[in-house]
């Protein structure tokens, strides 16, 4: 459907449903900066928080708000690792494998998570609950190894603690 999207006029009415709270955050962000497009990345992050990933319709809609073309928005968002174009699990895990975590045994954390999830990095578990990706340094080096789950930090991990975290999240559902 990529070709269709550029046919949309940036300001045309597109039926995108964000919660009123998110719409309000969009309006607030657009008022903050001297130039509208500065609000683009924060807006995409907020949209992603609500919808799990960046949809085609979101790109069209946000592009209209910041007065850019959808292809420009797509080009910009593709630069940023945290912005994603595909659905992820309800609990999306970043596993730090960078140097400080590697020194403290992130290999074992990585294999534990793959084993507990039963899917490889980048895939979503069948129940839709989990997905995990390898991530560059998360800034938790003195409390390594670490992972984040939906951007909440879990630090000073070992195999047992990692298993417990996954079990706990699975229970929570």
């Amino acid at each position, binding site marked *: 459907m990529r070709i269709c999207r550029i046919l949309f006029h940036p300001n045309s009415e597109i039926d995108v449903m964000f919660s009123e709270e998110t719409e309000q955050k969009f309006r607030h962000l657009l008022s903050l900066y001297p130039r509208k497009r500065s609000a683009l990345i924060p807006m995409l992050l907020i949209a992603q928080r609500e919808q799990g990933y960046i949809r085609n319709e979101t790109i069209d809609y946000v592009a209209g708000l910041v007065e850019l073309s959808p292809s420009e928005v797509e080009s910009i968002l593709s630069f*940023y690792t945290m912005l994603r174009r595909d659905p992820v699990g309800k609990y999306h895990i970043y596993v730090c494998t960078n140097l*400080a975590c590697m020194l403290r045994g992130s*290999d074992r954390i990585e294999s534990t998570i793959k084993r507990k999830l039963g899917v490889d990095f980048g895939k979503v578990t069948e129940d839709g609950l989990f997905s995990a990706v390898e991530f560059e340094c998360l*800034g938790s*080096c003195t409390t390594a190894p670490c992972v984040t789950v939906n951007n909440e*930090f879990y630090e000073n991990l070992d195999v047992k603690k990692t298993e417990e975290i996954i079990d706990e999240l699975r229970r929570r559902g």
Partner: protein
Amino acid sequence: MYETVLFKNIADPRVRAIDRYAELGGYRAAEMVVKERTPAEVIETTKATGLRGRGGAGFPTGLKWSFVPKDTGKPTYLCCNADESEPGTCKDRVIMERDPHQLIEGIIIASFAVDCHLAFIYIRGEFWYAYRVLEKALGEARAKGFLGKKIFGSNFDLDIVLHSGAGAYICGEETGLIESLEGKRGHPRQKPPFPAVQGLYGCPTVVNNVETLANLPHIFNRGAEWFKSIGSNPKNTGPKLYCMSGHLNKPAVVERELGIPLPELIYDICGGIPGGKKLKGVIPGGSSVPILTADEIDVRMDFDSLAAKGTLLGSAGCMVLDETVCMVRFAMRTARFYAEETCGQCSQCREGTWWMEQVLHRIEHGHGKMSDLDMILDMCSNMKGVTICVLSDACAMPVEAMINKFRAEFEYHITNKTCMVGAHAHA
């Protein structure tokens, strides 16, 4: 006995609230500066302290401010660089999560110095918790009249926008940060013009690191002479946060004077190396800086002492490696990070980092040739000083040092198709 400055209040969870922060003497320096000083005086005092930027380059902060042209008719912007992403570094996060008002107060002082009325905190997207802490703290400061119109009842207006990045190491480079803040891909800009002249939206812009700004309230409470009395020499002054990670009994973010001897940090403060293992090397300033071997660690942790040893203080992300670390794997992981994070503008960096990782990967997996080592060193020399920003150098410098200082280990790997140290880099 070292008296903590930046971390003085971090053990107190209540200090995140503005009332508690103010009760402990907070915002007095900012109020005094805004009401009683001129911007020129603030710049002069900061110059006199010798404060150097804590983000990595160590550029004198007061001097950086003095480059901002006056009367251009354009607004001046201040960006607080909170995109802490250098592997091994986690100090700014502690300030933001535990003592956010210290940073906000610092931003007020710096903004006053450069006549900025709209400042930005560019915080990396992964720091979602720190983002929420700062968001709340900024709201409190606005409610108290410490931000907004006529702050502290003076004639100075200032607001601060908290801006989240979305996962790109290169946005910690100041012009990459500016591009990203403008809503673009974080491609660093060719310099000159420097941001002080032409930065955000084409206007004069100052970019300062979180830790740098957090020093300012203390400087204006206690004076330049006090600040200069801390540190190893007149060119390396003030308190410093060291991120002590890797093979240590007590890894921690530690505050001590700039220029503390490295062995003191490793053995006295962080409890030495676990399991009675031997020290192999230390990366003193984040993944971008050349490694020191165990024989070279008798050095002070300041900008000039480390430069004299052929390495850098960088962001003081100090990683300690014990004898079990395979240097080939460590070098490969280092190169992989830069290959992952290059913005792709300059061919030397885009291709160089990728090939560096590929060649180290094949050595690590037993397919290397002896000529690979000199080829990597040749690549390193072609990657330094030839690109728009220093990401390319930041990949070449550490890998070059690892090969030069641990060459026997790389050669062993090539000949025997296995690790010299036996195991992978496990704790």
